């Protein structure tokens, strides 16, 4: 299995479009999950995913180790999300200065509108309130179904750190949802709206 995957990566590196397409289809959901974890508030997932796709096609030839495809894609996705966030901050400032209109016309309402389930919509935007350190393990666990050990490997942190971030992040997420729902969060744990993550 790994050998077949390696061959596909080798072909993709050599410019084989079919192999590139197959790899993209196999890892697109992974990339999207990482983008969700690191995007800035209001960033459109489709736009970010497109940017990663461009980088993938243009730079996959530079990938040395076929086994490192997922980590490489994760790094690309994080860089794209951060670059986009910086651009958005600059653009947002310019909009405020030039037009005195602080409202960013772009939001993730487009993708939220596709969500049939109201809780799911709220959960997605509530996740944006969490720091990426909490958001990423939650998404890798819930959306990708990774074990805590796998998440620890992906993030390069001890397994206990993953468990702590999951526990803390889930509590914070439940509090955000309760606040949006008009329910008072319980007193235990950090009930602040600005969250700090452990390093």
């Amino acid at each position: 299995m790994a050998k077949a995957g390696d061959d596909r990566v080798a072909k993709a590196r050599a410019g084989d479009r079919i192999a590139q397409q197959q790899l993209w289809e196999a890892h697109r959901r992974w990339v999207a999950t990482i983008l969700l974890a690191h995007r800035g508030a209001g960033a459109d997932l489709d736009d970010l995913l497109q940017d990663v796709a461009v980088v993938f096609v243009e730079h996959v030839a530079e990938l040395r180790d076929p086994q490192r495809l997922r980590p490489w894609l994760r790094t690309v996705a994080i860089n794209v999300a951060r670059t986009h966030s910086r651009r958005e901050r600059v653009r947002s400032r310019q909009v405020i200065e030039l037009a005195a209109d602080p409202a960013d016309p772009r939001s993730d309402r487009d993708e939220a509108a596709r969500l049939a389930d109201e809780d799911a919509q709220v959960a997605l935007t509530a996740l944006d309130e969490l720091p990426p350190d909490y958001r990423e393990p939650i998404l890798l666990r819930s959306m990708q179904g990774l074990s805590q050990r796998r998440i620890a490997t992906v993030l390069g942190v001890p397994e206990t750190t993953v468990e702590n971030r999951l526990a803390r992040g889930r509590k914070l997420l439940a509090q955000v949802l309760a606040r949006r729902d008009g329910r008072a969060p319980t007193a235990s744990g950090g009930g602040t709206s600005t969250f700090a993550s452990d390093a």
Partner: protein
Amino acid sequence: MEPTRDEVLISRVLDARSGSGDWRELELMAEQDPTLWRDLGASLRAEIAVRNAGEEVLDGTRRIDLPFAANDTVRSTPSRIWRHGVTGSGWLAAIVLLCVWLSTGVGAGKDAAAPLPGGDTLTTNKLATNTLNTTTTFDDALTSYRTVGFEEGRLVDELPMMVVDTQVLESGNDQMEVLYLRRFLERATVNGVYEVGRRDDGTAVPVPVHFTKRTNHGSL
């Protein structure tokens, strides 16, 4: 920030990793503070919501395909017009090209039958499955017409050109303008054949031609 013990226990429940000791500890804590059950319910609800949101959002990413440069052939359907290399008014140009390409059938490209890396080949009937093809010149379009036409069997032959008129240009560079006729022999399958008939008052009407078998191709 370190999580509290109850947060860790609830998280283990959500992951189905809680052992009997964890449950006992959680129940003991809940005897002192019953709101823990509410926290467990809220966390479970949040977990389910995130999973549902994930399914919806990740399923939606199927729309996002790889960008490939113009004239490249890809087996996937273009589901989104790529910004890659197209900015500003280029968007409009890309859309117009796509419309022209789809409406005329031009644009399969001279590499249409070329084998793809990996040993795969593309069929020629791929107007709906090709990516944006930015045929930009008359000669490219003509080449595409010939390539696709011959491969699909629609084009039977190209007859010699006929010169209709010539005219020496006044530019003084020994240039001559040539009017010529290209002649392509095409084949088509039709469901019905009609000939022009006349009513008594002389008006033309289409009259169906009935036949069972023809050995020679009739004039359409």
